[in-house]
């Protein structure tokens, strides 16, 4: 009985590396298949995922080719812990998919109230692949081309941040812009001046229409929209929630 248990434990231990590689293969396939990876990393990085998938495929084949050798090795808790640790990101991937960075991350990442407008002076305006369009404007366009858009009527979509005080006459409309992955996501926001409905909660997705302004307050540029229409919209799919450079 003991010998049988030992054999089974050794067999399972031998299977573990291949099992982990196959799990990761499955995860990468899932990420690439529906473009799900855009909920976590920049769309332009898809070749990296293909590369990772190919390497994992090769590693899986290597593991399977050595299977008979590993069967000779007894059960080891160390191997199980390595496998468990490598499995954790996949577990988080599947349990966290559908979520995105929200007001909690916004509050932690924003540097100052004027970041939204001041950012236009930074190198972000020179980052490639963002073509200014007169017809369609994202929150990022408002920040990057603030001077061009100043005084014009705009319609943009984003998430609501009301802050701790929950001001009745304004809120921040924000979104995150990603360079490589969500870990480097930068918050971009504009102040929305309007009578804010009480039921407008943090993280709610809205479409704001109104007049866009850039003004200087205490030597800092602050961009704002004097809104005349705020429409709740359905939350976009996780792949569409971030803006990408």
């Amino acid at each position, binding site marked *: 009985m003991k010998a049988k248990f030992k054999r089974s434990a050794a067999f399972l231990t031998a299977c573990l*590396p291949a099992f*982990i590689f196959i799990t990761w293969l499955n995860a990468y396939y899932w990420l690439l298949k529906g473009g799900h990876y855009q909920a976590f990393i920049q769309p332009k990085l898809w070749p990296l995922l293909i590369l990772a998938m190919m390497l994992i495929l090769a590693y899986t*084949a*290597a593991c399977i080719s050595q299977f008979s050798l590993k069967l000779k090795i007894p059960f080891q808790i160390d191997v199980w812990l390595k496998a468990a640790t490598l499995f954790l990101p996949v577990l*988080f991937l599947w349990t966290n998919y559908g979520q995105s960075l929200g007001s909690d991350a916004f509050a932690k990442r924003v540097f100052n109230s004027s970041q939204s407008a001041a950012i236009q002076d930074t190198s972000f305006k020179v980052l490639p692949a963002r073509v200014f369009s007169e017809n369609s404007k994202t929150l990022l366009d408002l920040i990057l081309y603030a001077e061009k858009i100043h005084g014009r009527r705009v319609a943009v979509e984003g998430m609501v941040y009301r802050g701790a005080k929950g001001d009745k006459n304004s809120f921040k409309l924000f979104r995150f812009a990603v360079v490589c992955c969500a870990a480097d996501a930068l918050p971009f926001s504009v102040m929305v001046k309007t009578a804010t409905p009480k039921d407008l909660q943090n993280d709610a997705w809205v479409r704001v229409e109104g007049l866009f302004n850039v003004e200087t307050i205490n030597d800092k540029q602050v961009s704002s929209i004097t809104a005349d229409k705020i429409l709740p919209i359905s939350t976009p799919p996780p792949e569409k929630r971030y803006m990408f450079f």
Partner: protein
Amino acid sequence: MRLKIFSLEKKKYLTESSIGSHDPFQHKSSKKTLAVQLLFVLLVLGLLVFFRDRAQFHTLGIIFVSIVLEALPFMLLGTLVGGFIEVFIPREKITRWLPEGRWWTVFVGAGLGLIFPVCECAIVPVVRRLLQKGVPLSAAIAFLLGGPIVNPLVAASTAVAYFADWSVVIRRMIFGYIVAVAVGFLIDLIFTKVKAIRSEVFSAKDYLCDAMISDHGKPAALGEKIGLAVSHAAEDFFDIGRFLVIGAFIAAVLQTLVPRQLLASVLNTPALSILIMMLMAVVLNLCSEADAFVAASFRSSLVPISAQLAFMILGPMLDIKLIIMYLKILRVRAIATLALLTFLAVFLSTVFM
């Protein structure tokens, strides 16, 4: 005793003694490491079970998964490069190119990133293999620190982020190189190889090239060698990958809990801003190919260029994920010394800019 037991496809190549060199089941952890790892897995699973509905947990999960997804391809590539070094480059060649006890090897080591443009996630498995092959300590440390900065990909990303401001690119490369050389030298002065490097790195001896002989006493074919290199890579990844996961998780926790506004108030003071930006580099754990974009965003907050450079030089050399990964090759005392020296060297090199 050289009993042949391992078969890859139809032929047999390896002796029993060589199996230890590429079997992850032989990379046994100490009891302390096992306990820490068990605690980590239980803690993470506990968080997942009890806090999964909280907003902060969602932020944590997204950042954690993002860091791992972004870093994993580079780590896989690093282990593959390590596997190929193991099989294709004999120890004699490496020791001829980078001989032990020669002062100039540290300069070569710090610039190896120009030939092997690997980022910080890929470099640990490569350095581990190089150390096994007999690369001097100073050169290995210089490559470990300089490789993720002094390389063409990082130069390109820095140039894009700073709108082809070549003074920033050149200063990043030069100061990265100088810091890597300086710390490589100092570590070599303070430690012997045995005192700095974990014994496990050397316990897996390099018999493979000797063992690459077929049944008929002939060298193995190219295809067979590639197969073995991939086997090495797979097992290295299975062994080292956990350090990336643990480091990424700790980084994600810090990113989730520490408000950046706390740091903003002191960012306009030159020396203090350098220190704060260096701390941020350690905490944020950004890829060396992406960190320039984040550093460039600080221009709007009037952060001095010296502090932005400190952020870009220290990050690829020393962050939480890397410190955890260094545990796979360096002893704790060596890591502490390396961290202190690197931190000081980066601070001193940028504060007088």
